[in-house]
C-alpha cells in the first residue's frame, strides 16, 4: 500500500507521500507520516512495513550522527543511502528481510541527490522514482511531466499531482498529501488535505 514519489530537481529534491496506513481491509490511520528527515539536509520516504522502516531510520540516524561527530562533517546523501542499503542487504542475506522500500533524497556538496533502496539492499540513483501500491498511477504522471533540470517549485507541483492521481485509483493510498522540498536553504514541508 502507499504512494511515495521522489524527484531530483535543479536546485534541490522533492519527496511526496499520501497519508494512509492500511490494516488489512481497513484504514489503520488517516494521518501517518511517511517522510522522515535524517538530518538537516536529507530525508527518506518509506513504503512497506512501517515498523521495519522506523527501526531502520532510527538506526541510520544514530550511525550517521556518530560518524558526523567523529569525523566532523555530515554524511553525503549517497553515504546515507548506502548505509541504509547495507542494513537492508544483511537483512535479506540472513533470511529476516526488512519489508520496506525507501527513497533517500537530499542536497549535499555534490548537489541534489535521489536514491532508491529496496528490500534486497539494491541502491539505484534516480532522477525521479515512485514506490508503493500507487506507484503505477504515479509513474503515469511522472513519465509525462518530469523533465530533468526543472526547479523544485515545479517538481513539488508534479509530485503532488502524481500522489493525487494515485489516491484517485489506488485503494491503498489516500487521506491527503505531504510534500517535503529540500534545497540548500533547508527543508520546507507542505500538507495538502487530510487530517492533521
Amino acid at each position, binding site marked *: 500500500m502507499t504512494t511515495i514519489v521522489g524527484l531530483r530537481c535543479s536546485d534541490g529534491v522533492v519527496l511526496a507521500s499520501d497519508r494512509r496506513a492500511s490494516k488489512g481491509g481497513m484504514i489503520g490511520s488517516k494521518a501517518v507520516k511517511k517522510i522522515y528527515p535524517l538530518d538537516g539536509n536529507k530525508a527518506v520516504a518509506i513504503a512497506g512495513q512501517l515498523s521495519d522502516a522506523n527501526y531502520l531510520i*532510527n*538506526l541510520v*540516524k*544514530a*550511525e550517521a*550522527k*556518530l560518524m558526523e*561527530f*567523529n569525523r566532523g562533517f555530515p554524511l553525503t546523501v549517497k553515504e546515507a543511502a548506502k548505509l541504509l542499503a547495507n542494513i537492508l542487504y544483511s537483512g535479506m542475506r540472513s533470511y529476516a528481510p526488512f519489508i520496506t522500500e525507501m527513497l533517500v533524497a537530499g542536497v549535499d556538496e555534490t548537489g541534489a541527490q535521489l536514491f532508491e533502496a529496496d528490500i534486497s539492499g539494491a541502491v539505484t540513483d534516480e532522477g525521479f522514482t515512485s514506490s508503493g501500491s500507487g506507484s503505477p498511477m504515479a509513474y503515469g504522471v511522472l513519465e509525462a511531466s518530469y523533465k530533468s533540470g526543472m526547479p523544485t517549485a515545479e517538481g513539488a507541483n508534479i509530485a503532488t499531482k502524481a500522489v493525487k492521481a494515485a489516491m484517485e485509483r489506488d485503494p491503498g493510498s489516500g487521506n491527503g498529501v505531504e510534500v517535503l522540498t529540500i534545497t540548500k536553504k533547508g527543508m520546507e514541508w507542505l500538507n495538502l488535505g487530510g487530517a492533521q
Partner: protein
Amino acid sequence: MMSPSGYDRPFVMYTPDGRLLQVEYAAEAVKYGSPVVAIRGKDFAVTVTRTKDPDPLIDPIEKIHMIDDNVGAAGAGFTGDIHVLIDQARIEAQRHRIVFEDPIDVKSIVDHLGQFMYQFTRYGGVRPLGAALIVVGSDRAGQHLYQLDPRGLMVSGKALAIGKNSEEATDVLRAGYRSDLTIREALDLAMKALSKAEDSDSPVEVGIAAGTTFKKMGLEDALRIYVK
C-alpha cells in the same frame, strides 16, 4: 604519594589499610591533565578549557566534545582514555535515541560512564582509565553539570574543576560563585579560575548548555554573544 611497597603491582589488590593504589595512581594522572572549569547557573551551564599546544605548526586540539545535540564533555588526563569515554557516551546517547526517539538526559549518560569507569577498578588485566571528565548538558529537567573521576565516582555540582591545579581553580570558584550569576559572569569567573590553574595563552574553547541544547564555540564568540 605513598611509597608503593608492593601493593601496587597487581592490577586489583587492596593495601592492608584498604586502598586501591592503581586507582589512586590513575587519579594522580588526571592532575597532570590540562584543566577544565565548569559552572552551573540558574538556567545554564558553561565549561571552559584551553586547546593544547601553542605550537604554530600544530592545529589546536579539540578539547570540548559534542556527545549529542544537548550534551558535551571535556576531559583531563590521557587523551586516549578520554576518547574512549567520549565514544562510549556518544554511543549511549544514540542508543537512547534508537530506543526512545528522544534525546538522552544528562544523568543517564553520566551514570553509564560512571559504571564504565568503575568496571576498570574491579578486574585484573585492565588498567583504570587515567581520565576525569566534566559533563555539561541540557534536558527536560534543566541544565546539569557533572564530574567523573577514575574511581567511577560521579559528582553533580554548581562549580567544578578537574586537571592540573584543580584545587587552586576551585578556590577561585568558591570565592566568586553566586547562585544568580549570568552566563557572562559565569564565563568571566570560569576564565579567572582557569587562568589561576594554568598560565597559558592557547585558545579557549567554551561549551554552553542553555534551553534544550549544548553549543561549542571559541571564547571570543561566546563573549560577543553574552555581553552582560
